[in-house]
């Protein structure tokens, strides 16, 4: 039901600054990213490899301090091509967000699929398939951030 704007509308912007603490686990994980390494941790109880590295296993509730470098290649579990924009979106469209099961790990890693023209939908549809193998492509300049990996591209 659309009512005409008979009354005033006050336009305003709420801007709130945050400084979020990484803590020891994220710090170590992102130091790894700077060196083009993707770290996971293995749970001593269920033996699963969790990536990104965690401080504890959310199923067994044990501290996971067994760190290992995981494969940078894996298979796409699911993906979505985003073609709309909302205010302050951190990644500009079009982009493909995807869950990727890196080889020999037990949780899916969320990142981008890229390396080809995303503007033509038919190309995207023909190129990206569930189960497809992809591999991390790194940026030249790394800052210890999740976007140090530019995207995962089809192998």
């Amino acid at each position, binding site marked *: 039901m659309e009512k005409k704007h*008979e*009354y*005033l*509308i*006050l*336009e*305003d*912007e*709420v*801007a*709130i*600054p*945050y*400084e*979020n*603490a*990484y*803590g*020891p686990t*994220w*710090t170590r994980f*992102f130091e790894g990213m700077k060196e083009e390494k993707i770290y996971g941790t293995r749970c001593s109880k269920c033996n699963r490899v969790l990536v990104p590295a965690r401080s504890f296993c959310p199923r067994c509730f044990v501290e996971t301090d067994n760190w290992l470098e995981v494969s940078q290649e894996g298979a796409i579990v699911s993906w979505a091509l985003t073609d709309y924009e909302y*205010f*302050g979106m951190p990644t500009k469209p079009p982009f493909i967000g995807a869950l990727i099961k890196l080889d020999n790990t037990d949780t899916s890693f969320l990142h981008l699929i890229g390396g080809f023209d995303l503007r033509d939908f038919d190309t995207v549809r023909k190129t990206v398939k569930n189960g497809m193998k992809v591999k991390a492509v790194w940026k030249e300049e790394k800052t*210890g*951030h999740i976007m140090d990996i530019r995207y995962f591209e089809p192998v």
Partner: protein
Amino acid sequence: MKKDYNTIDNVIRLPHKYAAGPTFTKFYNGLKEAKIYGTSCPACKKVFVPARSFCPGCLTNLEEWIEVAQEGEVVSWAYSNKEFFGMPGKPPVVIALIRLDGTDCELLHLIGGIDMDSPDTVKESIKRGTRVRAAWNDERRGHMLDIKCFEPVA
């Protein structure tokens, strides 16, 4: 607290469009004309400012609008010298609860036209009971800050 580990800076900016609704719209339009409107409850015999759409005491819808006095007494005040991110205005500011003549609730606004160097200098001009009067901006847009501040009546 020691900062051994990294942190990430993050500013969340969210745009909003607040609907003012019929009551605030009429109140804001009044401010544009340098008028302060209140509404009066026939049951409780109370006048509220800014104008309300219903009486918070007896929940009656309020339809009687009146222009209230632009002068009143300071009930309480606070001196603020700390800046926070996104603050509307720069410190120091003196915020105050003001009982405008003929009304039954306090209006929250700013005190101005005084030496704001320190709480001590403010105390010289402002006390509980000090009479103050609205000082208007020349350019008004239908906003609470069309009233620049309330100044002590000479």
